[in-house]
């Protein structure tokens, strides 16, 4: 099992609240990713980072923001949550070297915005 953690696992909040989804990995990977996935659907890349102080927007436009101040930590923030943000958020990390780009995923955070 990969050493990548996400908290909280489940979150139910009201519209307008600010939330931060936490993601940490202990593998020393430079690359980290955030995906959004609705039930039974494909994953959409919303943010990624190639290292400390590097963040890029993914293929799906998202109102969330991310930061990468430490290698192991890649939090995602929603300033004002809306019902349209209800989804599962998956964090992943990878290292191109020996693992050839294989990504290791956390268990996900299921977010419900009322």
């Amino acid at each position: 099992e990969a050493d990548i953690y996400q908290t909280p696992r489940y979150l139910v909040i009201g519209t307008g609240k600010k939330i931060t989804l936490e993601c940490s990995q202990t593998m020393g990977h430079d690359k980290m990713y955030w995906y959004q996935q609705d039930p039974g659907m494909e994953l959409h890349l919303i943010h990624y980072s190639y290292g400390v102080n590097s963040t890029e927007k993914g293929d799906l436009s998202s109102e969330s923001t991310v930061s990468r101040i430490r290698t192991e930590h890649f939090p995602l923030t929603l300033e004002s949550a809306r019902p349209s943000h209800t989804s599962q958020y998956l964090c992943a990390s990878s290292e191109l070297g020996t693992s050839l780009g294989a990504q290791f995923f956390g268990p996900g955070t299921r977010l419900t915005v009322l």
Partner: protein
Amino acid sequence: SQQGEEDPQALSIQEGENATMNCSYKTSINNLQWYRQNSGRGLVHLILIRSNEREKHSGRLRVTLDTSKKSSSLLITASRAADTASYFCAPLTQGGSEKLVFGKGTKLTVNP
């Protein structure tokens, strides 16, 4: 980065049978990866096959790669109920950004 397309979208078999899933992609790859996702969980990396490999085994999993046809297949032998999950392929583009693009996957149901 490019998306792999899995086929079929859904597959239902009996325990003990073999399950075969296919993946097609469009441009040259560095490697192709297969992942499993149990319902409501994160993805788990299963197996990676490099562009210069044709076949790879890992336990009950067998992956083949045909770069001339830009396709791959994942075979699960002697399936078990615990194999019930969605399976995704992800091609890693040659010289690309290392981003993986996941398709809708194949939803496998193994009936006891």
